[in-house]
């Protein structure tokens, strides 16, 4: 789960990581009031769940009070990478004597929690990692040790980022706090870019990015509350609550599949035969007929859908339960498009028997089903 910069900074404050004051606002008037209270100059920062806000004009330094309103208005009118800006962070402009990059993340390849540091801050770290990998510092920390790590352990690391011993010590202390935040809040990323030295020699997190592990949200109701409903697709969230995994796409062939890998392969196969999938939908492992009804409703909300392909490989999922779900759906509401069904595996004979006499189009294999779907659905 993504959270906004102002929310990430809230977590930083909770963990004692120094970060500038700031106020999140939703209107230009609120921005004006916030700037007045803080004193100029201020920085107005768009709060959206994408990178590259600065380049898109979403981050502006304002030096005159009369410019705050119009600038805020302008940023609030932006759409950055398809996401409308609905909130701003108003924060005092900082003196920057030096900036570095610092983060902690889970490295899938190494299977480790790793600190990443780079003496060049404010840059795109992925670009540096490709073009000048020698500039990237890494430090692995055992997962069981994250909660109790002490600043002293990181002095060698931060000494490579800061030549001044006092600044290196401040940064090392910040690393210990980041490690604790990372493990206690179940983050997959805590990133400070840039971590700066201000005019007074203090090391401060000027920006903050925190990604949270969706699998761990069950033990963090306080973090679930941070979810920005404006940035989420209501249908996709709703699907998650019902135990489905659903992502809307822009094609014309609705898909209902069990298993994420097979759901992706079904989409790919549709594309291979000239069709375009309208969604990704994994009905999950257990076979509750009610899930099938919910899945139909999700798919049919999309007016572009011309045909639905149901591809089930029964394992834990029982084909007869899926068939019951299909029948219940057909009884409950009208499905205005053709349905192609491919059922195989556990209880497939029972499932097929249940569907006998209906107007469903059957397919023996995924490839046959996808070919039929592409023919009916056409290309989007």
């Amino acid at each position, binding site marked *: 789960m993504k959270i906004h910069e102002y929310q990430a900074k809230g977590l930083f404050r909770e963990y004692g990581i120094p970060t500038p004051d700031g106020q999140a606002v939703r209107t230009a008037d609120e921005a004006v009031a916030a700037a007045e209270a803080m004193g100029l100059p201020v920085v107005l920062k768009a709060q959206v769940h994408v990178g590259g806000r600065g380049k898109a004009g979403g981050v502006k330094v304002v030096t005159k009070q009369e410019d705050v309103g119009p600038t805020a208005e302008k940023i609030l009118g932006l759409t950055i990478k398809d996401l409308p800006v609905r909130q701003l962070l108003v924060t005092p402009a900082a003196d920057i004597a030096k900036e570095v990059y610092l983060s902690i993340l*889970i490295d*899938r*390849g190494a*299977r*480790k*929690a790793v600190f990443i540091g780079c003496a060049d801050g404010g840059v795109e770290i*992925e670009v540096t990692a490709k073009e000048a990998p020698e500039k990237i510092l890494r430090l692995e920390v*055992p*997962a*069981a040790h*994250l909660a109790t790590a002490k600043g002293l352990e990181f002095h060698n690391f931060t000494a490579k980022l800061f030549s001044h011993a006092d600044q290196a010590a401040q940064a090392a202390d910040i690393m210990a706090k980041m490690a604790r935040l990372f*493990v206690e809040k*179940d983050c*997959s990323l805590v990133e400070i870019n840039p971590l700066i030295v201000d005019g007074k020699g203090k090391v401060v997190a000027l920006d903050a990015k925190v990604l949270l*592990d*969706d*699998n*761990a949200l*069950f*033990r963090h109701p306080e973090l679930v509350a941070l979810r920005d409903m404006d940035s989420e697709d209501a249908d996709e969230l709703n699907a998650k609550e019902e135990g489905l*995994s659903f*992502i809307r*796409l822009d094609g014309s062939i609705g898909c209902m*599949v*069990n*298993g*994420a*890998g*097979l*759901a*992706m*392969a079904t*989409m*790919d*196969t*549709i*594309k*291979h035969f000239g069709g375009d*999938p309208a969604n*990704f939908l*994994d009905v999950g*492992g257990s076979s509750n007929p009610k899930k099938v009804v919910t899945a139909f409703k999700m798919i049919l909300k999309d007016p572009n859908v011309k045909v639905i392909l149901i591809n089930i*490989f*029964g*394992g*834990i*999922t029982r084909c007869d339960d899926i068939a019951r779900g299909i029948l219940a759906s057909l009884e409950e509401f009208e499905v205005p498009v053709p349905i192609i069904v491919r059922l*195989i*595996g*556990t209880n497939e004979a029972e499932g097929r028997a249940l569907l006998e006499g209906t107007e469903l189009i059957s397919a023996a*294999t*995924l*490839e046959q089903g996808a070919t039929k779907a592409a023919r009916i659905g056409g290309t989007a």
Partner: protein
Amino acid sequence: MSILIDANTRVIVQGITGRDGSFHTEQMIQYGTKIVGGVTPGKGGQTIFDVPVFDSVKDAVAATGADVSVMYVPAKFAKAAMLTAAEAPLKMLVVITEGIPTLDVLEAYEALTAKGIRMIGPNCPGLITPGQCKVGIMPGPIHKPGRIGVISRSGTLTYEIVKELTEAGLGQSTCIGIGGDPIIGSKFVDLLPLFEKDPDTDAVVIVGEIGGQDEVVAAEYFQKHMKKRVVGFMAGLTAPPGRRMGHAGAIVGGEDDTAASKIAKLESAGIPVAKVISEVVKLIEK
């Protein structure tokens, strides 16, 4: 022969009295797996399907001589269960559970590895040596003993591919579902050497998907160290970037972890990749 499990493997089930655990225990016993014990804290002394239940993995292993544990414990309690497995002299822990917090998996992986215990999963269907031993949740009847190894990040997609293999007369030596999470105990590259050494495996199918670099690392390993034939299938060509496609680990984060990029790298390393499932058999037979 086979890899990792065979007719002599002695298996205990963590979470044996739970809904999923008991259902799949019965299925595994029916398949012929030697289920020698189960673990549910607080239920030691009971029996289920004539299998003795113990309070801890340590007790279960001491009493039964089990070398493999398979876990069906719900995600909320999985960390403790995985860590107790690390305290027993097991060879392998297979974690079926989906939705375990990543840092819990990481901590358990580190603890198990320190003890020399191999971890398979989490969020996986388990593994099967057809005709001998099934440790997991896959439907047994689609498999058939033979000489093809299968390693996959997926569940039902693997069943599709295995069924195609079986129908084409290509039986399997061992099929391993390694799981769809970002952190998994065994990756393609951890298992390919075992198949390369196994005298009863002729070729290996790797089934990958978007997210991470494991398929690319496997391709590099193949190029340097393998003589046996490896063919691939990659799911997610049509997956939009930045979206998590069901599996926690299936997300395109950059240019390197798309299906298209992986297919290109596999093919340039000499691993042909099937465009549709039915092509897997053709590529093996080529």
